[in-house]
């Protein structure tokens, strides 16, 4: 459950660091989820489906970048627009491709990689390990993102540029940094990862597309960036926490605790609000966050 938040969050961490607030995260994930299923269906491969999802995310992010970076449109307005567009367009395309009430066709998806049986049988420890490691391959790939991002942001010249652009773009301009290019780059990258995170939902968890299936995970990913204090490991921790909240929701529902299910459904979102309000408080983001850079 934490994985889509982690993947998307890591992407939006980069654009946030460059001073771009993309609340279109939700829409980008939704486009990714649909493109993943459609791609996997027609190209008959889960991997090609993932690629299609990433390309869809890239395309939507490119539109966002064009409007906000080049044309200085307000980031919040464009992001909200993308979310509304995604909700409508994915529903329409989904109904065209899969029909209204038909049962979803079998599509190639990512399966759980089996834990070696021999190891699982050794003892109770093996049994626990086998439950933990019954994951699909994307999980293992995703876990590499945090250390890679950490290295990239804090130990490379481009990482320094990204952090600087989010703080004071004009100063970057005076030392010869192309602010527009840096912002485009991070937005496109966040689109790639946002699309992949959507595909994780549709190809790794469910094997089909459901209308509005992201259910606020894009926003939670953005919240994870803030809660994680704009650092890769922070985002990892926040994603795990919010993921746990989402798992709790499905477990509690299955257990039948007698709590009205509406409250259980609210749980992860309330957890998100509480953590943001309670723990983050004065957490300071990049100084130039959300402000279009207009060169004189």
């Amino acid at each position: 459950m934490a994985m889509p938040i982690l993947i998307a969050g890591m992407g939006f961490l980069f654009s946030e660091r460059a001073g771009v607030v993309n609340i279109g995260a939700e829409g980008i994930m939704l486009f990714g989820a649909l493109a993943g299923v459609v791609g996997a269906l027609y190209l008959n491969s889960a991997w090609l489906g993932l690629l299609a999802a990433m390309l869809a995310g890239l395309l939507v992010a490119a539109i966002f970048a064009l409007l906000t970076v080049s044309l200085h449109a307000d980031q919040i307005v464009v992001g909200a627009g993308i979310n509304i567009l995604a909700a409508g367009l994915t529903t329409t395309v989904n109904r065209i491709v899969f029909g209204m009430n038909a049962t979803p066709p079998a599509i190639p998806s990512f399966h759980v990689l089996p834990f070696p049986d021999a190891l699982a049988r050794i003892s109770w420890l093996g049994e626990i390990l086998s439950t933990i490691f019954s994951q699909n391959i994307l999980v293992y790939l995703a876990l590499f993102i945090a250390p890679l991002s950490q290295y990239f942001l804090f130990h490379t010249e481009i990482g320094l540029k990204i952090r600087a652009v989010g703080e004071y773009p004009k100063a970057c301009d005076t030392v010869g940094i192309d602010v527009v290019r840096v912002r485009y780059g991070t937005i496109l990258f966040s689109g790639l990862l946002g699309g992949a995170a959507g595909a994780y939902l549709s190809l790794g968890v469910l094997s089909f597309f459901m209308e509005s299936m992201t259910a606020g995970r894009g926003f939670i990913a953005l919240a994870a960036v803030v809660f994680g204090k704009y650092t890769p490991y922070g985002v990892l921790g926040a994603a795990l926490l919010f993921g746990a909240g989402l798992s709790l929701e499905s477990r509690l529902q299955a257990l039948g605790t007698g709590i009205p299910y509406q409250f259980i459904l609210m749980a992860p979102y309330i957890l998100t609000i509480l953590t943001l309000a309670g723990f983050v408080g004065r957490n300071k983001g990049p100084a130039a966050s959300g402000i279009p850079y207009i060169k004189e």
Partner: protein
Amino acid sequence: MANKKQMDNQALTQKQTTPPLLEMRHISKYFAGVRANHNINLQICQGEVHALLGENGAGKSTLMNILYGLYPPTAGKIYWKGQAVDIQSPKDAIALGIGMVHQHFMLIPALSVVENVVLGMNCGRQGRLNLNEAAKKIEALAKAYNMSLDPWAKVWQLSVGQQQRLEILKALYKGADLLILDEPTAVLTPQETEELFNMIRRLTEANHTVIFISHKLNEIMAICDRVSILRLGEITSTIHVCDTCQQTLARLMMGGEELSAIEKKPASLHETVLECTKLCCRNTRGLMALKDLSLSLAGGEILGIAGVDGNGQSELADAICGLLTPESGKVRINGVDMAGKSARAFLEQGVGHIPEDRHRRGVVLSMNIRENFILMNYYKAPMSHKHLLDWKLIDRLTDEAMASYQVKAPDRDALMQNLSGGNQQKIVLARELSKAPSLLIAMHPSRGLDFGATAYVHNRIIEARDRGCAVLLISTEIEEILALSDRVAVLYEGEVVGQMPAAEVKTDTLGLMMAGALRGAG
């Protein structure tokens, strides 16, 4: 002395036989049809300190931004060491060896010193950062120029003077031969200014070249070799500093207009307007900023508060405007005890305020002139009736104020951020004086203003005093204090360490008091 002048001249003429380090030929720049630079020719020789002198808006910064690649010129060519060059971005300028220290520092507060220095540079290590190596280089470089700077400190922790040193160091690290300093002393204390001058001397000894942008004549006389005077976007003359004097420079800068000296009638005192007794205040960091401060000020009098920045001036002004609640002590205005009253109650009591930070507290930059003009009294007649603004009247009053205060702006709908500092200050003055205050608190009223605007502001303040207004003038510029005040009080670490009539002030005594080395009669 005459000998030294001759030698200087000879040295400079010799330098001119080789091609100059930099030549800007026939540079013109228009912004949407508005002339910023027109047909400018400028020659800079290796190793000199060349001043660009001009009033605000004369085109100094535009010219330097063109040289640094931030704006493309509309026309003209730049020659570097005799070669025509095309500088399209700061990157090109840096590659040639041109460095610029902007008036508003181009540093990123959240990053460390070393990160700020290497930002945007290509170290050729496949993009990996090596901050340790860079930090060592920075330390060595700082040592070579006799500076101290911790490479791992975050920039927000540095003082303004240290930030400026970092900017210079940043340019040197990138291999700058020519350093452009845009109004470098505007934000410095007198001591920091002296340090900066020593630094500039060390740079020119090492054969670096400096372009020094300023409108402070004494600084140009002190540090520069030659000076080019810009007026209305054109260079009107270039002269050797040793052949001129402050008066000549002032006349050239103003375009032949004589400065009207400040004329002051002797003060005629009315009754006491402001009375502070045993005032104690804490600053935002919780430290005691004012300690048992007592003052009284009568109508028709200007009391100058002298002192080095940060000795309680801001807190004093805030306490008298009702923006800061005193720990103990009393503020009485027109005989009314203001304890526990809101800032608006202070305004209603007749307090006018020219705040120290014009951009943050004086005006709303993103609003237009007429909106800024009514900020203090929008809520009452005649500006509004039953919560509706009377724009017709406001427009008329704004137009009148703009005419009588000689505000240069396209119209009353112009945004504040598009006006020059002098014109912004005139709007603040117009707003604060239009309500005929009984007490005016003027804090650094001429900060960042050019000659003409400063004289204008000063004369208006004296007019207010002659009308019977009590004026509390808080300034760090001794000249300003002495020119305007009837009485001077010196503030040191939150206490008044001396008070005297302005006529009896000796500059050296004042200096000692400001440094806390001498106490006079309270």
